[in-house]
């Protein structure tokens, strides 16, 4: 997969990375209508389609930013397939409604399938990290949020009225706790096997 040629549609990924508003608008006008149509056909409305599209574009952005995502298939097929599968999963999970199209079939090509699966695995890992973060105590959440935001450890120590050394130690222990939970998680074990 690593040797596959980067597709011309990488320009859309780059547009997301550069937060290029004109190009992002183009992504919406070119690719959103099909997703909206699909969601509306399958028990959803425009509001649901709007959230779905936003969520998927954010996942793609996250993957591009942290994993240097390189698109090797057309953006249209890739984006639509992620939206479609995410929507079907949601329907199955929450509404148990009948879906008109057969679930999870119909990949246009192996190239699209690979790319979509990579993004889905990335998404699963992100969801796991987010869930585990929510399990942390309030102090941990606050220290991590501030230290990875735009605050220095000194500022955080001041703000939380703790010593600098303790703030630093606490930060690493909080990530240590997340590390332990992550490694114990079945989801993570399965992802590692892939």
């Amino acid at each position: 997969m690593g040797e596959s040629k980067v597709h011309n549609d990488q320009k859309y990924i780059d547009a997301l990375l550069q937060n290029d508003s004109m190009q992002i608008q183009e992504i919406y006008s070119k690719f959103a209508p099909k997703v909206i149509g699909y969601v509306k056909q399958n028990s959803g409305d425009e509001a649901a389609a709007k959230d779905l599209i936003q969520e998927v574009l954010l996942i793609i952005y996250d993957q591009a930013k942290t994993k240097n995502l390189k698109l090797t298939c057309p953006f249209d097929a890739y984006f639509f397939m992620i939206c479609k599968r995410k929507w079907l999963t949601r329907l199955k999970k929450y509404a148990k409604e009948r879906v008109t199209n057969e679930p999870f079939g119909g990949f246009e090509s192996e190239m699209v399938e690979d790319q979509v699966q990579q993004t889905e695995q990335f998404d699963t890992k992100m969801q796991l990290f987010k869930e585990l973060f929510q399990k942390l105590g309030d102090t941990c959440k606050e220290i991590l949020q501030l230290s990875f935001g735009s605050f220095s450890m000194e500022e955080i120590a001041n703000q939380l009225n703790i010593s600098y050394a303790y703030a630093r130690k606490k930060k690493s222990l909080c990530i240590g706790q997340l590390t332990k939970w992550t490694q114990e998680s079945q989801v993570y074990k399965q992802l590692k096997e892939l």
Partner: protein
Amino acid sequence: MDEATTILFEDYLEGLLSEENRLAFEKRLEEDAEFAANFNTYKALSDHLSHQFSKERSDFKTQLENIGSTFFEENTSKKQTPKVIRLKPWHYSIAASIALLIGFFVIQNMGSLDPEDYIFSESIEITERSQDATTLKDAETAFNNGAYKDAIENFDILLETDPENVELLFYKAIAHDAILEYDKADAIYNRLKNGSSLYKHKAAFYAGVSQWKRNNALEAQKLLETIPSSADEYKDAQRILKKL
């Protein structure tokens, strides 16, 4: 994993280890698989949090939300732009009669069926013949993206060399229909409907849905009634006919 190890991880990531300790750390990464696995997970989490709480991501998210909202508002307002018509006094009596008529039809049509439910919205994959593969792909992509004008242009190019290709003709009709070029859509629907290809009943069905969309119930009815029980579209056609 003990406290000292997590602190060591953090010091390494922040570049706070002495040269000697850094080298020892990296050597241990190579030799101690458990240590390396713990570190890799720690680093993955650290990278995730760093990205998750970054200002850059939060700016991107805000911008995305704004663009998304604008796009959906425009889309909805396009569909719902109210037309303001000034009324003269004598218009009111006509309006009242129309209101009565509409009321009658609304009561008759209380079901939730709507032409929108039946409009063609599948992704297409055109059968490749000995045609220009690039144009074919362009047509397909444009169609699937809802860029119907582009799709039509590409269909026209393909039809020049293959004027009897019913598949292309059918999608071209759907594309004209989608951008409200009804005359052109109807001409193709008619041609296909009166032919004997695989698209005969499909064309009649979508022509019917199109008429229904245009509020021509009678025309829609005539078209949908031609669809035989053997056709894939029969059930949907019957459902619409009941509604009509």
